[in-house]
């Protein structure tokens, strides 16, 4: 009767809409990349978030040097360079015929501009320290740049490959946050906040053009949604698939390829070393022994991830295996807490929205409760995490923000932090030096460690460097600065016909330059 007509109509409409789904042409030239974290803005020189580089690094912006997929440093905008005997002068020879996406030419003046603004007044660059040794930058001629350092820096060429040192144009630098203009093989097309970012092939790229005509980055934080999106073809690849629990589904499906690689992400339980009772090394050691790393890796990451005993990637030849120092021993934790004279401490644990944090945090909270430490879990969004609530130092008294920006810590007073515990993964490569920074949220001040890092920075001899880096790892392990959990694995799931995506993540990036479809 009337009801069956209605049912028929609805069914008919549904069938029609299914049939009208677009079918794809044979050789695809577009790709839909699923990413988890949306960047606040698109300027890698003004943001700390790895999410920015995931979109723009090597695609839109380029630096003098860049990371290759195996982690090695290769020439970028500089085709070659020389380093003086004393290690203080670097001369870079730039490629000719390079233009920014707005048509203006890229030359040595732009390099000078880009490098000088990193440590200039009012710069929001997250990695100023890496380039602090730059004393002067000279544009010798349009294709030659001479950089003079105030002291030798063995990492300088390496550091220039980071996204924080990409070359930008003075005409467009101020608006790179919303309309990034770089020199890369892709141009920025459109951003839909909360949803996606679209880039298109740069037809006038100076180097090898990209194989793809366009790419869309779609932001899907929800693990089920990610699973569903891949299966339905709404995205073609998830370089960092957020639902490791469902990987087995893809492993047995010939339409997909699962690629498990390594990252530079040390996932740690950060402790505020300056806040009682965490200022007592015995308490920190107690916490370290309360944690069962393998349970965290299994429970939060479904087995993906390598337990670490210090802050260095275990796949690196210089890694020191210090996991036994902080082995799982809850009885020892209780003894240590008693020795420290701390009974039933109450600590807060701030968790950013990443699955390794939210899930890992719940597991660790239980493990800590089991040794008598009361933990209050506080879930925060990244905006909160990147604020004085966790990561940033409190603003100095009397500080005012500009306009409606909150005031920031400006270094005019000692840095103080108010959180107790948090969990985060530090994905920048070779970043053990952060433990030497007084304004970093570990609140760890060790002269011994700072000395090791200072020596490392000026040492060029590989054997000596290796020795120093091992000493650094040992120092922070012995001091139990943080709970070293595991090295984040890179679990990527992609359409089996897609080729060219990076297997490992030597730096935060989604390098699409070599990505193409193979039928």
């Amino acid at each position, binding site marked *: *009767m*009337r*009801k069956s007509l*209605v049912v028929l109509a*609805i069914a008919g409409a*549904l069938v*029609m*809409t*299914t049939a*009208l*789904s677009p079918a794809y042409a044979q050789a695809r030239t577009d790709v839909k990349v699923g990413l988890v974290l949306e960047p*606040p803005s698109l300027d890698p020189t003004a943001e700390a978030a790895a999410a920015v580089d995931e979109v723009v690094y090597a695609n839109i912006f380029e630096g003098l040097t860049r990371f290759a997929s195996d982690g090695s440093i290769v020439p970028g905008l500089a085709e070659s360079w020389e380093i003086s005997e004393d290690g203080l002068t670097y001369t870079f020879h730039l490629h000719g015929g390079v233009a920014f996406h707005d048509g203006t030419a890229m030359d040595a003046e732009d390099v000078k501009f880009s490098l000088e603004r990193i440590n200039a007044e009012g710069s929001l660059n997250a990695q100023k320290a890496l380039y602090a040794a730059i004393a002067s930058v000279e544009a010798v001629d349009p294709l030659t740049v001479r950089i003079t350092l105030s002291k030798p820096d063995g990492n300088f060429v390496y550091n220039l490959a980071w996204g924080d040192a990409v070359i930008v144009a003075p005409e467009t630098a101020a608006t790179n946050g919303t309309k990034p203009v770089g020199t890369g093989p892709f141009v920025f097309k459109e951003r*839909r*906040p*909360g*949803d996606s970012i679209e880039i298109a092939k740069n037809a006038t790229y100076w180097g090898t053009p990209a194989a793809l005509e366009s790419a869309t980055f*779609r932001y*899907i*934080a*929800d693990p*089920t*949604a990610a*699973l*569903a*999106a891949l*299966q*339905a*073809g*709404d995205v073609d690849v998830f370089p960092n698939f957020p639902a490791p629990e469902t990987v087995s589904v893809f492993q047995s499906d010939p339409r997909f390829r699962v690629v498990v690689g390594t990252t530079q992400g040390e996932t740690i339980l950060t402790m505020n070393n300056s806040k009682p009772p965490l200022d007592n090394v015995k308490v920190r050691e107690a916490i370290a022994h309360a944690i069962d790393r393998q349970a965290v890796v299994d429970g939060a990451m479904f087995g993906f991830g390598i337990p670490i005993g210090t802050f260095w990637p275990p796949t690196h030849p210089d890694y020191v295996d210090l996991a036994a120092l902080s082995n799982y021993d809850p009885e020892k934790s209780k003894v240590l807490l008693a020795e420290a004279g701390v009974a039933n401490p109450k600590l807060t644990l701030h968790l950013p929205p990443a699955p390794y944090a939210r899930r890992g945090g719940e597991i660790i909270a239980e493990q800590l409760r089991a040794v008598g430490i009361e933990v209050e879990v506080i*879930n*925060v*969004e990244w*905006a*909160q995490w990147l*604020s*004085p*609530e966790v990561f940033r130092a*409190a*603003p100095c*008294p*009397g*500080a*005012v*923000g500009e*306009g*409606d920006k*909150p*005031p920031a810590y400006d270094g005019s007073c000692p840095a103080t932090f*108010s959180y107790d515990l948090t969990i985060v993964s530090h994905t920048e490569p070779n970043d053990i030096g952060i433990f030497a920074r007084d304004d970093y949220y570990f609140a760890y001040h060790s002269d011994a460690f700072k000395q090791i890092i200072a020596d490392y920075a000026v040492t060029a001899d590989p054997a000596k460097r290796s020795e120093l880096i091992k000493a650094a790892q040992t120092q922070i392990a012995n001091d139990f600065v943080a709970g070293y959990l595991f090295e984040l694995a890179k679990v990527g799931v992609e359409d089996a016909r897609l080729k060219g995506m990076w297997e490992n993540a030597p730096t935060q990036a989604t390098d699409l330059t070599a990505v193409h479809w193979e039928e």
Partner: protein
Amino acid sequence: MLFFLINRLTSLLLSLLAASIVIFLVLEVVPGDPASFMLGLSATPESAAALRDSLGLDGPPVERYFNWLFGFFRGDLGISYTYKVPVAELVADRIWLSLPLAIYALTLSTLIAFPVGILAAAKRGSAADVSVMGLTQLGVAVPNFWFAMLLVLLFAVTLRWFSAGGFPGWEDPLLALKALTLPAVALALPQASILARVMRSALLDTLTEDYIRSARAKGLTRNQTLWRHALRNALIPVLTIIGLQFSFLLAGAIIIENVFFLPGLGRLVFQGITQRDLIVVKSVVMILVFAVIVVTFVVDMTYALVDPRLRRHG
């Protein structure tokens, strides 16, 4: 009729006014100093003052309230504290998802419930009636977000007839509707259960009325009685429920976005809460309440069309 219309319009405006006052009170007056609240640990007396100044949070509450209200009607919803873009932009994108979803669900729910409810009433006591009562009893008890998960499991993951979520935008209307279909069904079925039961009992109530018996006595067949008299009168309680449903559906829509990763008002307002972005929360809540009040108004108007008696009372 005109008097009735004016009366109802005044009622509408008063409701909107009252709602806005409540929202303003809760979000701006209750937290004490909204600027300090939003700044959280960044708050120093100087920074709070600067923020108050730049966001217009200075001044007596009454003045702020009117500024906000007039801004609202001009389309100026303020600047989001977290994203630093005008809230109006953020909302405009997402409202074109949340509202159509609620309306889609309302349509589906009505399309399913009406025939089912009428059938059950017409064939009261039969096997069809009993199964309808049983199914709707179940339908009422099912949480819509759980039902949505099950739908995704069946239709998206297993059968792959639909994508499991996401929203491609309105450039291709058919594709957009397809993306909204599973969410709308998940929302609609529990609501349809309620509506079908109300339809059924409202019809049964009217069918026992005297004037129905007179109609039958006059020689009208059962079906003619049903359509010409009973249905018309049963529509009144049913319309009330439809109006009320819209508010539940809108509320359900913002929850169900979590299951289908839809970029709608829900995600915006939930993030706004975690990020203490009172400006976003204020605007989104106001808009949702606005929508509910307007729909109730429309339902009232439809009453008047259906029942002339109401027009005269005004």
